[in-house]
């Protein structure tokens, strides 16, 4: 059974001058434990697709199923709750709450899930250790490098024990070393913890870390390849 299944997703943005057809009927299916890259040039619809899969936006046509539940039916407030419980997000930049420390940022998700203080502390520290930030618990985002911020964001995304993590161009603002470092962490989490990860990128350097590569061109899937690595 697939974790994510989309059926003929069409997204048309009604911009003032002319409508933009960002997705033209996308069908994809992602199984548990996959490590998938959505690749394609800028403007090909990667962000749009991830937003729709993540329930941040609604498709103009088509359906999205998460674990067989059709999320395109949910109301906005139900969607917020659904995201909180099921999906971890990592955005391109400015992911973190600037006024909270690294540990508080990671705990924040669990706080919204009403976990106990003890559990929050324990898990936040464990996750920050896992992404290699054991010495940055009490540091605020503006004192962290871009790569470190993205790793905190990954830790935060993991905190709620989501069904999968969506990362929209997580390496776009990182130097090569940080980008590889982040991808290594993601690959390890995928292998060792069996975490389902989907990230978008147009950065050739990091594509080869993924075990499945879906290529989008002009809002359509042009290829879908599996690699054994």
């Amino acid at each position, binding site marked *: 059974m697939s974790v994510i299944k989309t059926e003929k997703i069409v997204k048309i943005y009604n911009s003032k001058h002319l409508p933009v057809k960002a997705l033209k009927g996308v069908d994809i299916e992602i199984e548990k434990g996959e490590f998938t890259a959505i690749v394609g040039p800028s403007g090909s619809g990667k962000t749009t697709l991830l937003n729709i899969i993540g329930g941040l*936006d609604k498709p103009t046509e088509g359906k999205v199923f998460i674990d067989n539940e059709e999320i395109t039916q949910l109301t906005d407030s139900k969607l917020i709750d659904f995201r909180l419980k099921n999906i971890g*997000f990592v955005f391109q930049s400015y992911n973190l*709450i*600037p*006024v909270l420390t690294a540990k508080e940022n990671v705990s*924040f998700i669990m706080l*919204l899930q009403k976990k106990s203080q003890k559990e929050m502390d324990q898990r936040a520290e464990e996750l920050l250790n896992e992404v290699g930030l054991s010495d940055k618990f009490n540091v605020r985002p503006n004192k962290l490098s871009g790569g470190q911020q993205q790793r905190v964001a990954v830790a935060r995304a993991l905190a709620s024990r989501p069904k999968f993590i969506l990362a929209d161009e997580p390496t776009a603002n990182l130097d090569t070393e940080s980008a590889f470092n982040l991808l290594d962490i993601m690959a390890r989490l995928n292998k060792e913890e069996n975490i389902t990860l989907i990230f978008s990128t147009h950065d050739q350097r990091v594509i080869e870390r993924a075990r499945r590569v879906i290529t989008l061109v002009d809002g359509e899937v042009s290829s879908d390849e599996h690699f054994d690595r």
Partner: protein
Amino acid sequence: MKTLIKISWRNVWRNKARSIVIILATGFGLWGGIFATALMSGMIQQQFDSSIRNQVSHIQIHNPEFVKEKQAEYSIHNAKQITDFIENNEKVFSYAERTLVSGMLATASMTSGVELYGIYKSQEEITTSFKDNLIEGDYFESISRNPVIIGKSLADKMNISIGNRIILTFQDLNGDITSAAFRVCGIYQTSNSMNDGRNVFVKNTDLAALIGSDDIVNEIAILLHNIDNVNAFSEELNSRFSGNEVRTWYHISPDLSFMNEFSGMALMILLIIILFALAFGLLNTMLMTIFERTRELGVLMSVGMSKLRVFTMILLETSFLVVIGSVFGTIIGALTVALTSRRGIDLSGFGAEAMSEFGFDSVIYPTLDNMFYLNLAILVLITAILSAVYPARKALKLNPADAVRKE
């Protein structure tokens, strides 16, 4: 909630300059509001007290005919029984009986129309502030035969000084014109210079001899222990002693009660203006904050922060700004009021001379009751919440997908 408070609190200090500006604006706005209110209340209160103490008292009794036409012959019915009754009534602090005739005052070179009050020294002394208002001479003491006390503005106008002889002319009870010589033993001054120019005081016994009767009482002025009892006590007087007109201070001087209400309204308007300014300042600040943090709010909503929480966070941020500002403003406001209420503020030189024509003192003692601070606090908080609602709603309308795309 604890974390929400923590986040909101820290958010307040992200843009320190902007937060401090709005906090100071709130603080100084309230300071001004508090001080202006205290100043005006003090002025009104003093004016009220001095009107009550100088002329109106709490209750006055007259013959109804006398109210229409000030003729000495219209004496109060059963004046003796009335004074016996009020003498022994525990609600009454004091009272003063007066005989009142209109007449002319003449010096060697000038004349002026006056109201002549025949008063009893000791009654007047405790019932009104008349004796305290003496600025020259004494209280019917230095001159034994026909002493008279006149107001400063009259003395100035007619060039009269202590010890001068003046002639008072008026009608006696038979309608005959009588004149008598009096000697000025004192000069008084109240904040109402119009009255000072007209009201002239002599001993009741001297006046009684001249008008030809010693049981004429045209006016009984009563001061109660508690002003709140005026209605009950005037009704009691009315039911016991018919034929007289018993009036309370607000009947005698409707402008006093009008002034009380009007000043309350004026202060209300002032406060509303200040609160409006506050509301727009806050609205602007919060809209700017939300505009700048669109992306961040988008991330928060994406990762699962509920609308209620986002709303609460923005409400909290606004409330923090306002609470700090108002605490600051109220403290300096209350301090200013406390300081000035003891020393008073001397407004002479700021047109206080002109104001004294209307009965205002030139030294003002600002005053505020504690209820005002409480009401103000509630009003400010309501304003804060109302002005946060629009920006907070705006934040809720953000579509997380659009918000996170924003650079």
